[in-house]
Structure formats: structure tokens, C-alpha cells
């Protein structure tokens, strides 16, 4: 079956609209965070939400498209990291399917797992495409690790993991809270929400 056929068969209209809305959520949440001057990004909250509500494939697609569209409207650099966003969505979907979003403390563990998936994909891109440096604040961390005598690979791994841990755990917790707060008539329509909601 071709990809587009699979899209048609697997994805209901509701799921398609959910993904589209989640992409916009990813792109606007940064505005709230910067309004409050908080040290997190939350720019994958929509991706994680789709993972929870509609499964890993839909979640991955949300992440991938978010960064590709970012690439078209802000800077092509964002598009280079689209595989990372895809990994986050897939990881969130898998975590939800295996019951890791049933309680708030399980959601924290899920956040750590998502951070791990994030690093597995982000490190090679950062390393081989950008030479380990992306021109952001996180580069200070990399240079500090290098100065301590670590090799480039190790430095990038540490940088990616630490700069994402708090953000992804916060993202996972908020996504969990949102799904819990959704009215039943909405979660009823979401193919995978039962893995999260039924624990209540």
C-alpha cells in the first residue's frame, strides 16, 4: 500500500485535523513561553499530544511536518531537524501505547525516554551536518565539555541531553494534563486516547 493510501485508510478526518491543529500549536506555544520568560521551549507539545491521542505514526508526522513548514516560513535550519521532531512524536506515541502516560509520575519517565529518542536522532544531525555547533546558547555547553577534554561526540551528546531534559519532561507533563482535561466527547473521537484516559 502506498503512503497516501495508508494515510487515507488509517487516518480519519478527525486525526488529520488534529495533526494540522497540533502543528499550529507547536508553532505558537513559543509565544506563550516567551511571554512568561520561561527557560523551556515546549515547541513539541503539539507533537507529543498527537502521539498521545492518535498514536506514533500520527505523532511522528506532526513533528516532521512542523519542522518542514517552519523551514518554509522562518529558516531552512529548522527543516534540517525535522527527523528529530519525528522521533519525538513516535516516542511519545509509543510511550502512550505502553501505558507510560497513565499517571503524572509515569509521564515524567516518558519525558526522559522522549529526551533519549530526541538525542539519538539529534546528535548525528548536529554532529555531521553542523559540526556540533548550531549557533545557539547550547553551544556554550558543548564548548565547556570540549574544554574539559571530552571528544566532540561526547560533548554533543551531553549538550543535547541536558538542554532538552527539562523541556521534554515539562512537555510530557503538560501533554498528560491536557489529555486528562479534555472532555469525553473529544477523547471518544481520538483513536489512542484510551491508553491515557482509562487509568483515571
Amino acid at each position, binding site marked *: 500500500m502506498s503512503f497516501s493510501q495508508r494515510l487515507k485508510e488509517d487516518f480519519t478526518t478527525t486525526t488529520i485535523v488534529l495533526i*494540522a491543529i497540533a502543528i499550529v500549536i507547536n508553532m505558537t506555544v513559543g509565544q506563550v513561553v516567551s511571554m512568561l520568560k520561561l527557560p523551556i521551549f515546549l515547541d513539541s507539545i503539539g507533537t507529543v499530544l498527537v502521539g498521545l491521542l492518535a498514536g506514533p505514526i500520527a505523532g511522528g508526522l506532526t513533528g516532521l511536518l512542523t519542522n518542514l513548514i517552519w523551514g518554509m516560513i522562518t529558516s531552512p535550519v529548522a527543516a534540517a531537524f525535522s527527523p528529530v521532531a519525528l522521533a519525538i512524536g513516535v516516542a511519545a506515541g509509543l510511550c502512550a501505547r505502553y501505558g507510560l502516560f497513565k499517571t503524572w509520575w509515569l509521564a515524567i519517565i516518558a519525558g526522559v525516554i522522549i529526551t533519549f529518542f530526541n538525542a539519538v536522532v539529534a546528535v548525528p544531525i548536529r554532529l555531521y551536518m553542523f559540526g556540533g555547533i548550531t549557533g545557539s546558547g547550547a553551544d556554550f555547553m558543548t564548548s565547556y565539555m570540549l574544554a574539559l577534554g571530552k571528544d566532540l561526540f561526547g560533548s554533543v551528546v551531553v549538550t543535547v541531553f541536558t538542554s532538552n531534559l527539562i523541556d521534554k519532561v515539562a512537555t510530557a507533563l503538560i501533554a498528560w494534563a491536557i489529555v486528562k482535561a479534555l472532555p*469525553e*466527547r473529544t477523547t*471518544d473521537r481520538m483513536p489512542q486516547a484510551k491508553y491515557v484516559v482509562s487509568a483515571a
Partner: protein
Amino acid sequence: MPVIDITQLSYCYRENNPPVLQDVSLQIYSGQFVGIAGANNSGKSTLCYAMSGVVPHLFHGKFSGNVKINGISTLEHTVSDISNQVGLVLQKPDNQISGMRFTVFEEVALGLENRGFERETIRKRVSEMLNLMELSSHAERSPFHLSGGQQQRLALASVLAVDPPVLILDEPTTFLDPSGAFHLFSILQKLQKEGKTIIITEQRTDLLAAFTERVIVLQEGRVRKDGSPQNVLTTPDIETAGIGRTRYTKTAELAKKNSLWQTDHALPATLNETIAGLRIRKNTDDYKN
């Protein structure tokens, strides 16, 4: 044969919830302009959904009875198929914009593209629709940059482009200002004259009285009244069903008490009916003396 034929329709959204529609039977005939009135939660939206196939296809509740559109049961056809027969316009203007097209013109064209019409036919048809809805000067703008009233007319143009014989509008004026609401109703009147069947849910009884030819009152999911606007909208007990009678009706009632009303005239629902029935001097000069 009625265009819409509903027999003993009952529906609830979830298994254990109380029913939203109970034993609704009604027939709507070709070319009618029908208003549906009722309090919030009286089942108006659900009835609109049932007449367009959204219920039961997109909500998985408990459905019994039968809804036939031009003799075809909604149960046996998909929402897409039914969309060729029935156009549905919803309450919130911006929620109905597809989000797939960057201009108003292309937005209206979407339904025709999706049904495989020829490019020239599409152009012609879209231009007609934009003219009819008075949106031609906005053809190249983004659909999201229109006002609420314009977006609602755009939604109407988009469903009308594929030429369904029946139009259902679910409280389309809630988020419009009064002149926008009036504008929408006058466009619907034009469409009725062209032969469309129009069904609209609406809180404002002055609009229902001025434009529709038949009003159905829903209360707790049942049909309570069905008749001409003047008959239905003037009875005092619709107020307990959450429907406010027009100020004209109330004025006439007071006039009756003060013997300022011609006894052979029924209670009015519109301005003209009121003027015709009042027993007062209708000239400024009379009041100067």
C-alpha cells in the same frame, strides 16, 4: 414527495446519556424556507446534523428512526454522498474555512475540484457564487482575513458551489452583527426564490418572522409546534421553551389590553402585521394637537 422526510427519529450521543432527539417526525417540502427555534440544548443542532448525515455517521451514538433525503436514507449513504444533496453551514464562521486554499476564490472552488469538474466550469461557477454572496471584491484575499459575516457568506458559497437542492444552516448568525445577520437572511431569501429548500436554526424571532414561511419549535428534543411564523411565534407558551417573542407581538398584546387592537386581527409577529392591526392614529400631525 417531501425533500426531507424524518420518521420517528430518536438519538443520543452516548449510550447512557438522555436522548437529544425524541420521536421526531417531520416532512419538509421542496422550496420551503423553514426556521427551527428552541432553547439552547433543545436539539436544534442535532436535528441539523441528522438531516445532513453527520448524525449518525460522524458521531457514534444511539440512532433510531429514519431520515430520507429525496427518498434516499441517510443511513445507507456516506456524508460525502449526502453533501451533494444537502449543504450544511455551521455556527462558527472561521471553523468552516477549509484551510487548504490561500484565496477566497480557490476556497469556493475546492468542492468542485474535489468532484472533478472542468477548470472552466469551476471558474464560471465560483464567479457566480461570489457575485451572489457579494464577495467578488474579496476573491483574491485570504479567507482568514475576512470579517465574520463575510466568512459566513463564504461558507455558504462553498457549500452552494456544488449546487445541493437543500441548505441547512445551524445558527449561522450567532457571531454576526445584526446587519450581517439581516444580510445573510436576505441572501437566503434570494436562494429560496431560485428554488432552494432552506432550513435554518435561529434565536432571533424577528428574523424568523420576517423571512421564513414555516417555523418548527423544538423543546427537549421533541417537536412542540409546527406552523406559520405568525401562528407559532405569537403563542405565549413558546417563551417557556426558551424562545423570545418579538417586541411586535408584545406590543400588540398590550395594545389588546388597552383596546388599541383591531379584534379581527390575529397577534402579529412582524412590523407590517403590527401596523396593520393597531388602532391608533398613524400621522405625526395628529400627535401635535
